[in-house]
């Protein structure tokens, strides 16, 4: 098992195709690009709809024109006095506070579970104890369980311990259920660290903690990037835990977005679509800036052998 941090580009060895095949190869290439672009259009279609609809004033929204561009600039008021930007204002007013709370949830959840995962990964890859592999598999299982299977006891536990329906409760839950994947990613990452490094420090008489601190941790930046992206995204996008364990008025952005969008009439689609865009922005920014590592996270989340 190795962590692939990105997909390596292989050199293309298509240099010496016989001349007779060249015409057919060119036709094939055209077909391929047409298909690739067609898929791009299909994949981006929901984004087009979100953008276009979010910039239309209520008077501009009708079934007939729903696929068209807005009929006026978003800052120009329609006959009802509303502009396209009003959607964004409404959405922002509704979502600003939940978005703030979600940052307070997703950032610590990502950092803390990444740190615990790093320690676990170090132990499970380098300082094995008896039955370490069985313990690892048992931890890993926690990654795949449907969270419904622990939800009723979790709700009971929260009630009986008197834990509030707050971001703090969600934070604890996200840290705990993030442990399996963070452990997996770091374990795979540390498996790739050359043994000689560890041997050398052991010869120097370094104990476990000091070799972790001095040798492993400085090498761990890529592992941290991957786990933190992964955990941030899953805490940000979570809806299940939020619905079961937090209060709609004090919950993360997913809850507020559903409240904003459900029960929305066609005329109010603009605001909910603007809301969907705003709520997706943080994870999209992470994806755009750190996309290469994002792929790495996806790969290592897949128990690739």
């Amino acid at each position, binding site marked *: 098992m190795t962590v692939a941090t990105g*997909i390596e580009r292989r050199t293309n*060895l298509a240099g010496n195709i016989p001349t007779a095949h060249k015409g057919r190869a060119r036709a094939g290439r055209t077909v*391929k690009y047409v298909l*690739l672009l067609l898929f*791009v259009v299909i*994949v*981006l279609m*929901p984004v087009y*709809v*979100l953008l276009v*609809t979010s910039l239309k004033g209520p008077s501009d929204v009708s*079934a007939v024109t*729903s*696929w068209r561009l807005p009929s006026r600039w978003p800052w120009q008021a329609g006959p009802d006095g509303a502009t396209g930007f009003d959607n964004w204002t409404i959405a922002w007013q509704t979502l600003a506070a939940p978005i703030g709370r979600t940052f307070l949830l997703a950032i610590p959840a990502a950092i803390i579970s990444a740190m615990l995962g790093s320690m*676990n990964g170090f*132990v499970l890859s380098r*300082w*094995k*104890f*008896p039955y370490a592999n069985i313990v690892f598999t*048992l*931890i890993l299982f*926690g990654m*795949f369980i*449907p*969270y*419904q*299977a*622990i*939800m*009723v*006891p*979790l*709700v*009971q536990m929260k009630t009986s311990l008197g834990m509030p329906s707050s971001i703090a409760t969600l934070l604890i839950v996200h840290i705990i*259920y993030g442990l399996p994947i963070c452990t997996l990613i770091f374990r795979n990452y540390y498996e790739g660290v050359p043994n000689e490094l560890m041997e050398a420090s052991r010869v120097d008489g370094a*104990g476990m903690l000091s070799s972790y601190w001095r040798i492993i941790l400085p090498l761990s930046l890529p592992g941290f990037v991957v786990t933190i992206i992964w955990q941030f995204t899953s805490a*940000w996008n979570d*809806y299940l835990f939020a619905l*079961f364990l937090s209060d709609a008025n004090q919950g993360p952005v*997913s809850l507020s977005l*559903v409240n904003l*969008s459900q029960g929305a009439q*066609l005329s109010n689609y603009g605001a909910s*679509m603007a809301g*969907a865009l705003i*709520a*997706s922005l943080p*994870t*999209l920014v*992470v*994806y*755009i800036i750190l996309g290469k590592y*994002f792929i790495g996270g*996806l*790969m290592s989340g*897949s*128990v*690739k*052998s």
Partner: protein
Amino acid sequence: MRKGIRNWGPPLLLISPTIVLVGIFVYVLIGVNISTAMTKDSALTASEFVGLQNFTDLLTEPRFLHSLANLGIFTVFFMVGTMLFGFIWAWMLDKGVTAEGAFRSIYLFPMAVSFVASGVVWRWLLSSAQGDRASGLNRLLQSIGLGSLQNDWYNAPYWGMAAMAMPAIWQLAGYVMALFLSGFRGIPEELREAARMDGASEWKLYRHVIFPQLSPVALSALVIVAHMSLKVFDLIMAVTGSVYITEVPATYMWVALTGAEYGKASAIATILLLLVCIFIVPYLIYTARAERKARR
């Protein structure tokens, strides 16, 4: 013995918080859930033990069977769709494409978006209104002259869940693509060259060299997509809310829980866990074995 403890004592200490937390929050809670599933409904504590009755009730209840059938249809379409698009995209990109990075990023980006956010637009795209009131995909089909293809999407009884798989495919086909692409890239170029030298046709090259090399990746992708599909919850809640027509066990469990039917909710959750285990347990054993073999 003393030396043994000194050797693996510290690592055990370092990992013990995780062992304790995962032990409690995964295994103990699953145990509690199963025991709750064997008690009578609507009581949080000190409830009456009823054995497997909640399970037998569920498995004879039309509503639960309907949710299972929905889940089955959804899973089949979701798996076939993601595997198909994922493979085609990876295959096209593998053969050398200008701006490969751009295509890859675009196909993969839906993965970064939550089902809750994309559900807003898919609810609109899959609107069942037709004719003059049509919006979303029905309006699009009308305007490109394919009006006859308009349909009820997820509002259609039974096969509606196939339409519900569309957003899920949109979201995760790129992920399967990334897996397949790394699989393609893992095949040594010498292997392909050698096969071409032996005069193997393109099809034979795929049949005998590339597909066998890709099968572990395909297996991983299938298991991951399957277990995601069985757990589907956010998507359904975001697109339709918890309504009967698109009900799956995970959303039915939410309905039972909000109705304070704890025994029933736990029983549904237990069945869901068993379904996921059918895929996951053999897979975990398989990867653990493969890894041990690789290390030898």
